[in-house]
């Protein structure tokens, strides 16, 4: 039996060490291969069913009435304006759902104030889009008509809006939650090392005050829920566009007071999530409640306008840094303040700390620091709540860190490549516990930077940049190195600064005909799990992937687990599938050994044929062995079902890489054109390189969106101004150049199979790469990027062509 870990694919990071024997998995034929996705045909032919595509007999359609005010008291909702109330139209207000417990975060941190969120507002609305009522009718168009009428019949007492953190903390500010006595729900400082001594010894101190923009996941499929309650069975079935079906089942059961075994949650096809669909949406409680109340199926499909108003938003932070450095550009210490603008509620699951806490803990990235003071704070504002979106916290931290590193280099006359090399951890220093207690398992920080720089031909670029600058053209190159925390389980969440428990399983079963069913607790929404897990199971059992079917997303057929978010599925799902497959392999080999009168240790499996090593003629097919294992009492075991379920709560793993962006800035119009993007990705053992590269493409594009286009804009009156795709600008095919992805491989010494998570690094790194490219291009103007996106008006301000008033 040969069991090997994949060899590093290029420029291996030295000293990472291979995984210990007990962590090894079989990678005989399929793992590492560019296997085409087995799930594609149903998506390409229009046969994939998302929640909006599902229909139930007697189904009703729900439409929300949402607050037009950022901050107001609900005085009355006059439902009498609706003809047919109770016969063809039904209305549910916060009062109707007053017995449903409010949603609340689960983060185990002292000093964090809680902001219970009623699933429909009862007395007060706290952002434009906060839910006031739900109207239900047999037809969506009729429900929209009724919702419009009812919306005009809600009386509000308007309260002063709190549009931003500064307003939230001004003396005498209106309070979103009066009982808390403050809008600031958290502020704590942690000190690591002796920053006073480090600052006293510094040659220079650099400062930056940065506003990271509020942008969001905006998946192509909006949110949606369909719920059906069978009164006689007392059985609730909920189809939701969720990343966490089992977790949602537990939450729905608790919120609605139903026994958990009578609640079934199904995530049908999910059209993108990017973290937004991991938190529990209030709508995921309300729609099931209405289905139970009416005894009829009820469907709610969010429209895009509603999504841009009411779905969670992300990434807004105010970050201020002081950085102590030597003349040689060595980073000594940082004092950082990370302030989250949390929106109207500190949202369930991970609270308003999801941005600032994760930013603060991840801030050091690939660099050594002797001392670090981190202040983390979050305030409530009258905007849509902030929750998870790909690269939570890590994006803002990476953005501000990589920008300030470039500014230090420019200030001290050091090349931006060189200053990174002077401060980066070397591969042979890993495993390494960062100053914020994050345990980096392995990595290729220098190697990633070098490979990216070689690929773009750095020297040639600098020559061309100088030449074109003479002609009044402004080319720039931006570097962004990153470390990406992955494998979100108990350990990873604790290292991130927001401790949460974790639980996941996979079940591998060989059927009586020798085919394989793999049921996983992670929940796919575009990442190709049906293919990647099939590759792992195929190697584990010695079969082809055509013999493997992967199922997930239905709590009645998949084992309990937390679903897919925070780059956890490859590590957790991959390990649980590999382990369960290894167990089933042993069961098969025992039966085959009985049939072949051999020792199990002397058997091999290859292409579904089990044979005696060295005597390939002495063999049985997987189908023959599986049949015997089920039916032949002469050879089957005491527990004949060929199945195993395995659990994994992984150690944190840290992927890494480097993104380099080449751009040109038009100094006349302020527009930024991206000419080239090169990404180096190191996520340890790769299951399917095709899928990994495509994850990088997508993540980088989202990061470019945040850097150049995307921002949820709110006026000083608290009114959202970006509520359609004409105002909220998602990158298009002409905004993005071809993205080149190159891979390095530093297997994790800690995780099963050496697998690390990935998929967020592009989003984490791209904004700084773009910002640094623009700042590099505009170096003749002394441009310092202090906010995103780099929209034309802001670029013209950086150039000095227009003043602040003109943008």
């Amino acid at each position, binding site marked *: 039996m040969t069991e090997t870990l994949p060899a590093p694919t290029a420029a291996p990071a030295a000293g990472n060490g291979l995984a210990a024997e007990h962590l090894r998995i079989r990678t005989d034929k399929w793992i590492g291969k560019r296997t085409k996705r087995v799930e594609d045909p149903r998506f390409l*032919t*229009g046969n994939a069913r998302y929640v*909006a595509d599902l229909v139930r007999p007697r189904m009703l359609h729900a439409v929300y009435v949402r607050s037009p005010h950022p901050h107001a008291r609900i005085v009355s909702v006059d439902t009498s304006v609706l003809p047919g109330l109770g016969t063809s139209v039904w209305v549910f207000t916060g009062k109707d759902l007053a017995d449903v417990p409010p949603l609340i975060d689960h983060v185990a941190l002292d000093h964090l104030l809680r902001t219970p969120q009623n699933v429909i507002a009862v007395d007060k609305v706290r952002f434009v889009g906060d839910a006031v009522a739900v109207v239900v009718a047999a037809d969506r168009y009729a429900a929209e008509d009724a919702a419009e009428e009812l919306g005009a019949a809600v009386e509000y007492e308007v309260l002063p809006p709190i549009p931003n953190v500064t307003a939230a903390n001004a003396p005498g500010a209106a309070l979103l939650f009066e009982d808390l006595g403050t809008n600031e729900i958290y502020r704590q400082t942690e000190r690591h090392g002796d920053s006073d001594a480090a600052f006293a010894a510094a040659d220079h101190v650099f400062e930056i005050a940065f506003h990271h923009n509020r942008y969001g996941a905006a*998946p192509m499929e909006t949110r949606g829920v369909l719920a059906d309650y069978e009164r006689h069975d007392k059985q609730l079935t909920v189809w939701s566009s969720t990343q966490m079906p089992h977790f949602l089942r537990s939450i729905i059961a608790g919120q609605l007071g139903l026994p958990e075994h009578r609640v079934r949650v199904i995530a049908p096809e999910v059209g993108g999530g990017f973290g937004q669909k991991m938190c529990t949406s209030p709508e995921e409680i309300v729609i099931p409640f209405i289905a139970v109340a009416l005894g009829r199926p009820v469907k709610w499909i969010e429209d895009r306008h509603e999504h841009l108003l009411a779905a969670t938003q992300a990434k807004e932070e105010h970050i201020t840094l002081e950085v102590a450095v030597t003349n040689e550009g060595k980073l000594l210490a940082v004092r950082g303040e990370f302030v989250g603008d949390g929106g109207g509620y500190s949202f369930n699951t991970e609270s308003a700390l999801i941005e600032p806490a994760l930013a603060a803990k991840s801030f050091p990235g690939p660099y050594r620091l002797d001392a670090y003071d981190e202040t983390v704070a979050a305030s409530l504002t009258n905007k849509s709540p902030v929750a998870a979106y790909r690269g939570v916290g890590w994006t803002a931290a990476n953005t501000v860190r990589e920008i300030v590193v470039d500014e230090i280099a420019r200030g001290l006359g050091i090349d931006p490549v060189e200053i990174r090399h002077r401060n980066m951890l070397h591969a042979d220093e890993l495993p390494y516990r960062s100053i914020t207690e994050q345990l980096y398992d392995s990595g290729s920080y220098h190697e990633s930077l070098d490979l990216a720089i070689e690929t773009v031909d750095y020297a040639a670029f600098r020559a061309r940049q100088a030449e074109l600058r003479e002609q009044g053209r402004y080319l720039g190159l931006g570097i962004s190195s990153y470390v990406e925390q992955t494998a979100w389980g108990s350990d990873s969440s604790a290292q991130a600064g927001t401790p949460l428990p974790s639980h996941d399983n996979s079940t591998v079963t060989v059927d009586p005909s020798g085919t394989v069913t793999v049921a996983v607790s992670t929940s796919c929404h575009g990442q190709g799990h049906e293919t990647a897990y099939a590759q792992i199971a195929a190697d584990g059992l010695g079969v082809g992937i055509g013999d493997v079917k992967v199922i997930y997303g239905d709590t009645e057929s998949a084992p309990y687990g937390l679903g897919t978010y925070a780059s956890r599925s490859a590590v957790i799902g991959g390990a649980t599938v590999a382990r369960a497959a290894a167990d089933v392999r042993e069961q098969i080999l025992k039966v085959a050994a009985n049939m072949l009168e051999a020792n199990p240790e002397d058997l091999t499996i290859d292409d579904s044929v089990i044979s005696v090593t060295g005597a390939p003629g002495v063999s049985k097919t997987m189908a023959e062995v599986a049949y015997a294992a089920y039916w032949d009492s002469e050879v089957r075991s005491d527990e004949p079902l060929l199945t195993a379920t395995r659990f994994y709560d992984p150690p944190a793993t840290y992927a890494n890489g480097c993104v380099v962006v080449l751009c040109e800035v038009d100094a006349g119009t302020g527009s930024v054109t991206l000419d080239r993007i090169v990404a180096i990705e190191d996520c340890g053992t790769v299951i399917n390189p095709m899928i990994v590269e*495509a994850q990088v493409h997508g993540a980088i594009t989202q990061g470019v969106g945040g850097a150049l286009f995307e921002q949820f804009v709110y006026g000083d009156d608290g009114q959202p101004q970006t509520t359609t795709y004409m105002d909220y600008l998602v990158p*298009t095919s002409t905004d993005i150049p071809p993205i080149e992805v190159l891979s390095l491989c530093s297997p994790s010494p800690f995780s099963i199979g050496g697998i690390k998570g990935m998929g967020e690094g592009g989003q984490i790194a791209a904004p700084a790469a773009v910002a640094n490219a623009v700042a590099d291009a505009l170096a003749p103007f002394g441009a310092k990027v202090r906010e995103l996106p780099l929209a034309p008006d802001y670029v013209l301000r950086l150039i000095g062509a227009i003043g602040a008033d003109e943008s």
Partner: protein
Amino acid sequence: MMSTHPKHPIGLTVNGETHDVLVEPRRTLADVLREEVGLTGTKLGCEHGVCGACTVLLDGSAVRACLVFAVQAEGAEIATVEGLAEEGTLDHVQQAFTDNHGLQCGFCTAGMVMTTHAMLAENPDPTDDEIRVGLNGNLCRCTGYTNIVRSVSAAAASAKAAQPGARAS
């Protein structure tokens, strides 16, 4: 509630089949295709004509089915993603998308595939830049477009190779 929007009988031809439906004039082609005709492959991503997920062909031209009323489509030949594959075999555009990993979550895919058909009908041999311009009315949030551009290019190449007289390469 009584409807103030009386319904009209119309006939729609979708993927060569005729459907008689009774619809309010305000009802969009996208909603009628998805609900009355039962073809849910056409997706709704924004319902205001920006994202392109609902792209179908109306007499061969790419249109946004969320911006067309069903009553306007009476008498036209409508093509949706469901009509492309024959007897379980993907057509050349669909095949190129899976060969080049041109889809992830799949929600924009029908619109991308239908737009590709319209684009290649007009320009069978587009450059990568022309492909990007041709696709920029279709949003994708997963792929970063890199593999979609490759897919369209591969579809064009395979259509060219399949033409009578084309030399095998």
